[in-house]
């Protein structure tokens, strides 16, 4: 056993760290320092910076245009990214549809779509959930009916993150309603400029606009935009769920957030001292740090298992549950430890600590962390099935 990074890995860490120090825009860093998310231009601009460096699709093999890093390198990269105050990249192209096209796409699809994802010039969103198909995704109803060399798509998607920023959408659609639920589902790539698509914003309780409803009315999608064959949609969706696990626990960002909370407490005066003088506040932080350590070393074990090419079982499924619980616990501590300073919403001037004034945003935003991508309750059902074999 050995927990140390190798000399090569340490050198890699130095290289990455230095590059981030030189390349993360000040505006992004300042947003991160105040717990705020980047706007569209900042996010896309940053992804293009990474794309130019070749560091956007870090999970991809060299063969498909990625850097071909080891799991450890990817972990180090993510750690340094968060430490530098850069946001996570949008996963829809890089971690979702990209790997799907690499694995299941035709040569033409690869040629058409991969370069835009690799460069960060083309942006994607994910059309999975529907109003009556949330946790129960298999009951989705959006229909794609073949009409000559096009599918005609009708239906509604919901909770579509960044649909209003996206050029393309990858969708699960029903191409056959005569077979069992999962079997009639296909995976379709839809250009968001196609006539018949209407996007309606959903505003979130953090006060921002991330989510959308997307309505499809007689949207004509060329048949060549079908990935794999008809009815393969469920297989592809399941492939995605087990694809990338080195960063699913969110360790890098949680680590940064705890450090930020400590700094906020130290920077915030209370009487003649600071909030950091409160032993109960410090203890709350300590308990978060201990929970983070457990998550971090469990993540290490998963990374190490990935390196050895070992399968990922229930062991790593727990990472999403614990990771999202910790994210929520950190943001809750941030809101609560700020006291009345955490209650201000849209003040333009800092009240005591601008960072505390903005803790509410991440706290509210991250309530969704235990919901999206399958609620934590659904995740536990899945693990229970593996454990109990019932």
């Amino acid at each position, binding site marked *: 056993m050995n927990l140390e990074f190798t000399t090569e890995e340490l050198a890699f860490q130095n290289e990455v760290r230095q590059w981030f120090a030189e390349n993360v825009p000040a505006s992004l860093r300042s947003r991160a320092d105040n717990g705020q998310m980047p706007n569209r231009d900042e996010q896309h601009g940053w992804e293009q910076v990474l794309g130019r460096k070749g560091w956007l699709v870090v999970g991809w093999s060299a063969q498909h245009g990625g850097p071909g890093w080891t799991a450890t390198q990817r972990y180090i990269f993510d750690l340094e990214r968060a430490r530098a105050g850069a946001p996570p990249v949008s996963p829809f192209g890089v971690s979702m549809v990209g790997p799907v096209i690499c694995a299941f796409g035709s040569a033409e699809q690869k040629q058409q779509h991969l370069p835009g994802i690799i460069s960060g010039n083309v942006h994607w969103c994910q059309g999975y959930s529907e109003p009556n198909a949330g*946790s129960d995704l298999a009951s989705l109803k959006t229909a794609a009916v073949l009409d000559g060399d096009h599918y005609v798509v009708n239906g509604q998607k919901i909770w579509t993150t960044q649909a209003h920023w996206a050029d393309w959408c990858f969708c699960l659609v029903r191409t056959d309603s005569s077979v069992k639920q999962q079997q009639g589902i296909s995976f379709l790539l839809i250009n968001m400029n196609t006539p018949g698509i209407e996007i309606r914003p959903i505003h979130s309780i953090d006060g921002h606009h991330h989510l959308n409803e997307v309505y499809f009315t007689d949207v004509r999608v060329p048949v060549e935009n079908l990935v794999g064959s008809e009815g393969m949609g469920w297989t592809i969706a399941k492939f995605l769920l087990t694809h990338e696990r080195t960063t699913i626990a969110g360790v890098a960002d949680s680590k940064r957030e705890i450090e930020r909370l400590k700094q906020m407490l130290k920077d915030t005066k209370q009487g003649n001292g600071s909030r950091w003088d409160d032993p109960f506040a410090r203890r709350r932080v300590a308990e978060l740090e201990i929970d983070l350590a457990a998550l971090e070393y469990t993540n290490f074990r998963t990374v190490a298992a990935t390196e050895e090419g070992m399968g990922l079982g229930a062991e790593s499924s727990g990472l999403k549950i614990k990771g999202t619980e910790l994210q929520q616990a950190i943001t809750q501590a941030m809101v609560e430890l700020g*006291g009345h*300073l955490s209650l*201000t919403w849209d*003040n333009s001037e800092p009240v*005591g600590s601008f960072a505390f004034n903005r803790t509410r945003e991440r*706290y509210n935003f991250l309530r969704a962390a235990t919901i999206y991508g399958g609620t934590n*309750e659904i995740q536990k059902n899945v693990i229970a099935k593996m454990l109990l074999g019932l």
Partner: protein
Amino acid sequence: MDFRLSDDQRMLDESASKYLAGQYSFDLYRKQLAADVAFDESRWTAMAELGWMALPFPESVGGFGGSLVDIQLIARRLGEKLCTDPWLTCAVLPGKVLEFAGGVNAMQLLSGVSAGTTRGALAALEANSHYDPTLIATRVTENGDGIRIDGQKSVVFGAEYAHVLLVTACAANGEAMLIAVPSSAPGVSLNHYRVVDGSRASEVNLNAVKLPETAVLARGCVAIDAVKRAIDVANAAICADLLGAASAMLNKTRDYARMRKQFSVAIGSFQVIQHYLVDMFIETQQSESLVWMAGLQGDTQECADREKAISIAKAYIARSAVMVAQKSVQIHGGIGVTEELDIGHYFRRVTHYAQMFGDRDHHVQRYMAFGQG
């Protein structure tokens, strides 16, 4: 022991329910939120006519001499309906500060508050005070013909709608003073902003504010005690507000779990969802018990008993209501984190009230200082 409401209390409770059902709604709340408004002069007048402003105060100033439980009954209905009207922050809290400060000038102001014609706001906390109203950096100096105030007060709830600010300040010799500062006085400038529940608060900048000596309502212990006791009253009301919000969330979430289908069955048929709801139900029941305990035992001048009762209730309810709010959002799923549905707004209200004038951590510590034998 008797937990029944008196006939008067039942009438008060019913009239509050009826008034809010008729005059307030989630749509109105959202409209106000979009317009950055948390006040309506006609509703204020209507509430005054219902007697809500006079309710908490002594008959000697034209009030109705209502009890702390009476205040809680209204607060619970406000929480239940997401109402952001600044009754608590512009009437009850400043009025109670005036009542406890005592003296001719305070009583005169209180008459106006009780009549609904004067609105106040308590400007006690500062950026560096955390929840402790005795940490005062704002300075007051006395000279021959009056006083001068310099400093800044933070997160002053309701200040945007207040005619008079009740400011705490500290003299060079360390003596605290409670001062009535007209919002319009020269040197007073306010920066307004929205706070987490959708209501409004302000930074109050006091830059060489000069006032006559009569503006000083109380000094030393009297001033501090008046503020602390009034904040305890506010916390009793806040507990009731949290109870109202948590009860509403529980009911709405239960109804949603019965109606919402996934995997061809109501999600309320899943045992884990059922146990979540039972936990929420039990916590809400226990919270209600402590709301009335705080109302009955917190209505006393005796400092240790009062602080113990209020801190027990707030420490418990702040945790329980937050749990109920979090689980409500979780059971609702995606729809629970949107602005469209009321659940997310209740969630924010609970965050807000759980921390307003002290979160669980603060009140557990205060209990340790005062309540542990």
